[in-house]
């Protein structure tokens, strides 16, 4: 497909849809989002905004509700049939937007394509690799793995199912709409990159019908402009209301604001491996020293020195919830035993003294600028709080593109560079072992790619591995919660807060929200 035909196609679509665009009936919805997908190919890039847009046009075998609990999708049910195999019973009578009937063959074709999209910047192969797909009959599918995998249904919830006719379709075919036929609640009618996405209700949808006939989605990157567009009545619904605009929108007649604690966590990682010297940490005379954070008391001192409530009130304008673990309350993997550390600077000073640092030390902490809500200001606040207990702290922030490289491998031999850094994490997978596998487990053999501070506890590793090797999901969850509790009590990392996600709409429009900060159009309701 050449660029010329792309533009011509879009022009034809634009001309056709333009007639509809003029009249706005009660059942048309106009939405402004902060970003737009990089592609309409649901298998091109595993990126939050792409995935949430894909769920509007496509379904996966298993769907996730607003809190990422698994619910039936194109599979009505699933269960393990032996130690390494899951059986999915597929929904009958489902058709794609182009009229083709949905069968097990489409699933196999989808998996073949999704694992092999050329030049994918972040591939879906992660969810597909190592799985064998076997068609039992048209509506029964078996998925087996070499070792027991209790999370096969979670993995299947991440891959949008396409019609097998498009197994060889290119990403461009999806972008132009030629191949963009799913089974989802909406059909894609138009995409002008940077400008507009238009969706139309799929009247033949197998699930609960959506409330809108037509939806127009515009990307408006600037938060103030987005809020202004809502106030001016240009759009009916916006996501990510900036803290500065929030009081205005909340007090205005005719508008309502929706908030929920999201699963996006901001945390600090403190280098604790047994190194000789660490950069960015010195004694008070400026001589390099080994990481003081090898001592759990120093890590604890840092945690209790952080006034999380003050950060929530004054830096975040109320848009954060202090946290002591990966998951917010009510979300998978949450432990009721883990509370955010209470602010106690005196206790922090005692702990430092017990660890032999009664005079403190000097420290530089690092973080990205502009990646997370108020990231630089949070770091500055933390630096002041640490300085108050005697750790003379300075802050260095940098653009995300520079930060993540140095964070991951800026040190000698591609080791993580920073001694103390702040970053963010949101569990996209909907399974409770994900943060443990990524951040807590000892690094190596596919484990611990986000474990940058060298935390290692054999007991915790075993809990994680055993939980992931058992098809008994309830047992596994217990193991994961136990591993989480141990790791958090040892300050494998220092949680700061979960961000509070915001949406706003004109009266008559409501949003069903949960722990995900991305926006799902089908959850926008007409009241």
């Amino acid at each position, binding site marked *: 497909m050449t*660029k010329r035909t*792309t*533009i011509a196609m879009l*022009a034809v679509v*634009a*001309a056709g849809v*333009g007639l509809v*665009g*003029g009249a706005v009936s009660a059942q048309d919805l106009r939405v402004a989002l902060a970003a737009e997908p*990089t*592609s309409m190919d649901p298998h*091109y*890039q*595993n990126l939050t905004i792409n995935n949430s847009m894909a769920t509007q046009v496509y379904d996966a075998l298993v769907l996730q509700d607003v809190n990422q609990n698994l619910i039936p999708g194109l599979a009505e049910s699933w269960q393990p049939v032996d130690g390494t195999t899951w059986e999915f019973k597929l929904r009958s009578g489902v058709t794609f937007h182009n009229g083709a009937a949905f069968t097990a063959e489409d699933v196999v074709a989808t998996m073949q394509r999704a694992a092999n999209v*050329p*030049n*994918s*910047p*972040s*591939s879906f*192969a*992660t969810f597909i690799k190592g799985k064998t797909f076997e068609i039992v009959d048209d509506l029964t599918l078996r998925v087996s793995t070499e070792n027991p995998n209790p999370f096969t249904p979670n993995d299947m919830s991440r891959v949008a199912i396409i019609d097998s006719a498009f197994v060889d379709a290119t*990403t*461009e075919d999806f*972008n132009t709409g030629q191949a963009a036929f799913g089974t989802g609640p909406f059909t894609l009618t138009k995409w*002008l*990159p*940077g*400008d*507009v996405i238009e969706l139309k209700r799929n009247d033949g949808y197998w699930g609960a019908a959506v409330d809108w006939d037509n939806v127009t989605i*515009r*990307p*408006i*990157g*600037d938060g*103030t*402009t987005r809020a*202004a*567009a809502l*106030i*001016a*009545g*240009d759009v009916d619904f916006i996501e990510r209301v900036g803290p500065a605009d929030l009081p205005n929108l909340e007090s205005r007649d005719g508008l309502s604001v929706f908030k929920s604690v999201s699963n996006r966590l901001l945390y600090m990682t403190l280098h604790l491996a047994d190194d000789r010297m660490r950069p960015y940490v010195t004694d008070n005379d400026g001589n390099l020293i080994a990481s003081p954070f090898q001592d759990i008391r120093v890590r604890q001192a840092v945690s209790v020195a952080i006034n999380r409530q003050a950060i929530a009130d004054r830096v975040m304008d109320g848009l954060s919830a202090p946290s002591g673990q990966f998951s917010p309350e009510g979300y998978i993997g949450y432990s009721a035993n883990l509370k955010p550390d209470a602010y106690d600077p005196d206790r922090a000073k005692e702990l430092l003294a017990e660890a032999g640092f009664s005079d403190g030390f000097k420290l530089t902490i690092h973080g990205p600028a502009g990646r997370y809500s108020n990231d630089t200001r949070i770091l500055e606040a933390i630096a002041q709080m640490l300085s108050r207990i005697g750790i003379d702290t300075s802050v260095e922030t940098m*653009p*995300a*593109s*520079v930060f*993540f*490289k140095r*964070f*991951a491998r800026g040190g000698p031999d591609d080791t993580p560079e920073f001694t103390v850094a702040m*970053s963010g*994490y949101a569990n*996209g997978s909907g399974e409770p072992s994900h943060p443990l596998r*990524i*951040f807590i487990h000892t690094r190596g053999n*596919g484990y611990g*790619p*986000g474990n940058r501070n060298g935390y290692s506890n054999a007991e915790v590793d075993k809990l994680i591995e055993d939980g992931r090797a058992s098809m008994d999901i309830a047992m596994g969850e217990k193991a994961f919660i136990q591993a989480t509790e141990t790791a958090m009590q040892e300050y494998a990392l220092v949680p700061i807060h979960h961000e509070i996600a915001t949406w706003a709409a004109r009266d008559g429009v409501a949003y069903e929200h949960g722990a995900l900060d991305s926006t799902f159009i089908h959850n926008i309701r007409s009241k």
Partner: protein
Amino acid sequence: MLAFILRRIMQSVVVLFVMSLIVFSMINLVGDPVDMLVNPESLPEEIDRVRRDFGLDQPAYVQYWKFLTGALSGDLGNSFIFGRPALALMAERFPATLELATTALVIAVTVGLPLGVYAGLRPNGWGARIIMGGSVLGISVPTFWLGLMMIIVFSVILGWLPVSGRGETAVFFGIESSLFTVDGLKHIILPATNLALFKIAMVIRLTRAGTEEVMAQDYIKFARAKGLSSKRIVRAHLLPNILIPIITVLGIEFGTLIAFATVTESIFAWPGLGKLVIDAIVNLDRPIVVAYLLFVVALFLVLNLVVDIIYAVLDPRVRLQGEEG
């Protein structure tokens, strides 16, 4: 004239080559695009795969050679993020930016020129003082602040104009533009005016200076002595003479309107080149950034050439280098 144009084209090729080298090496010093593409928590194998797929595992000089050979055949590489040719992406966004820049230029001239002439004819009157004071404001107030204020006043409070976006487009004489629909015109007024304000102020100042200078000339005095009306003097004797320097400056300014409309495009969510390039810079989409910068360089080279030629045509006293006797 021909020799002049040929020499300039040859110089331009050298400039483009040097720029590509500078841009390419500078951008290779910043961060690692892989970290912006894959989730930072991905396994090392996935990171390695992406690095291989995008050729980032190769040494910089190999990457540059690939880029250069591609560029010579018109291929500036594929966007890391969109997976599509950088030139195609830019071509898609270019019409939106072009119509915004053109509208802004038209506004700048139609507003700035009469005001400038008026201020130049009566330099000590109250009207001139207000106009010149306003032009100082236009030059000094930041574009983004003014843009937000315009949104608040004209969209939120008065509700006259839409806040953002490009609006409907229509095809006319084979050109697709939002200028051909009422909805599209409504959408373009605010961003184009926002973009034009700085240029209006500049046109006013240029025109006033030119007017004052020309009005003191002997031929104007002679025209007055002949008893010509002041309308006729302005139209026949003043305007043609002050237009030459204004056209020269506007030619280059048109380039800056196209190349640096980034702030306005971001505030008004205008789907043009500026938004594409800002996102590319944030996400380290190197092929787009390189292609865009080279496009800007080429744009200015062409505009400079065109302005020089027009200048020579308008002003018979000017002879271009390389054009003998």
